[in-house]
């Protein structure tokens, strides 16, 4: 019985490649890469007569590495322009945690006062406790800021039944 996986993509890569709409040359790519590394038309400058082929290949490799480095650097600098909005939302998150702590403290204090009839006492007390809760909230939020969509995309994909292969 033929393996049903052979004509589909492995699950881990499935989503990414499908999203890029890059179906062409999926299977040839490995062959192309191998062919390129021994490409005689590659940059074959100042080849040492002793090492001839090897130094040419090294040159080829270093130029390709440089190109790849440049590409990744460009890819990393791309999301910088969204940084401002992300910082803004982080700041907004911290301040809303703080304000919420004080608000709830004040509300609870006011409620207790209304019930017992000692108006300013518990309001002041719980406002102070609410202030503490706000600081606690804020420090927690700062230490455990939820991941941004970009960070989440870098996290490992959901596990897909690995026993299936065996």
């Amino acid at each position: 019985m033929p393996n049903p996986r052979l004509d589909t993509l492995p699950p881990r890569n499935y989503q990414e490649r499908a999203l890029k709409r890059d179906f062409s040359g999926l299977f040839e790519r490995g062959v192309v890469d191998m062919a390129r590394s021994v490409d005689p038309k590659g940059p074959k400058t100042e080849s040492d007569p002793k090492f001839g082929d090897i130094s040419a290949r090294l040159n080829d490799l270093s130029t390709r590495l440089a190109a790849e480095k440049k590409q990744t650097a460009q890819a990393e600098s791309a999301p910088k322009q969204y940084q401002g909005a992300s910082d803004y939302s982080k700041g907004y998150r911290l301040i809303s945690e703080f304000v919420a702590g004080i608000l709830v403290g004040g509300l609870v204090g006011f409620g207790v006062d209304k019930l017992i009839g000692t108006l300013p006492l518990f309001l002041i007390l719980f406002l102070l406790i609410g202030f503490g809760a706000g600081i606690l909230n804020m420090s927690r939020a700062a230490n455990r800021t939820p991941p941004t969509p970009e960070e989440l995309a870098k996290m490992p994909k959901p596990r897909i039944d690995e026993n299936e292969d065996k």
Partner: protein
Amino acid sequence: MVNDPIHQFRIHNIFGPWNIFGFEIGFTNSNLFMGIIVAVITGFLLLTARKGSLVPGRLQSVGEMWYGLIHNMVDNVLGEEGMAFFPLVFSLFSFVLVANMLGMFPYFFTVTSHVIVTASLAVFVVALVIVVGIAKHGLGWFRLFVPHGVPMAILPFISLIEIISFLSRPISLGLRLFGNMLAGHIVLKVFAGFVVSLVALGLGGIIGSLAPLLMAVALTALEFLVAALQAFVFAILTCVYLNDALHPSH
């Protein structure tokens, strides 16, 4: 007043109001847009899932990304056992996202710019945390308010702070979404209003109005980003809070 930046948030009855049990209840523009939001989400997801092909097309990819984003998030924050909450988190995220995005259309009503809507969603989430926590762990769930390694002398004080901190969650969750949407729409309206007022001044005003016009365009882009980001933040904080229901000791 033409340039009233608050006017866009006014709620008015489309049908009614009817007198139901002594309350005046009508079908408002907010209700209408909530209905539209649900219709848009349902329609869009049905449309994207219609084919269900193994190799997704463009439209199906969007639907799968939408689903996959929330699936990843719930899996990463809550783990395997938290998958029961996936439908809830997905619904919340979709509702908030589509509400924010529909609000960006001119003349559309922004449902999430009213604190009563966002606060209801937030209170629902935190109430669910309490119910699930007690159902799963019994009274042991209240360990959440008793941190480890705190001296007995200040424990009541710390517990009080923890309780207030817990109670402030729905406020901060709802307030943040509401505040972002309200402030963004008002700022946008004010800058757009500057353009109109400056153009009315004559030639110099027309040249001068270019600055607020550019600002309004830039702010529109920012608002789209904020709309998506706030929906995402709402969903992920829901996950983080639900995590407390599943694993109270921290």
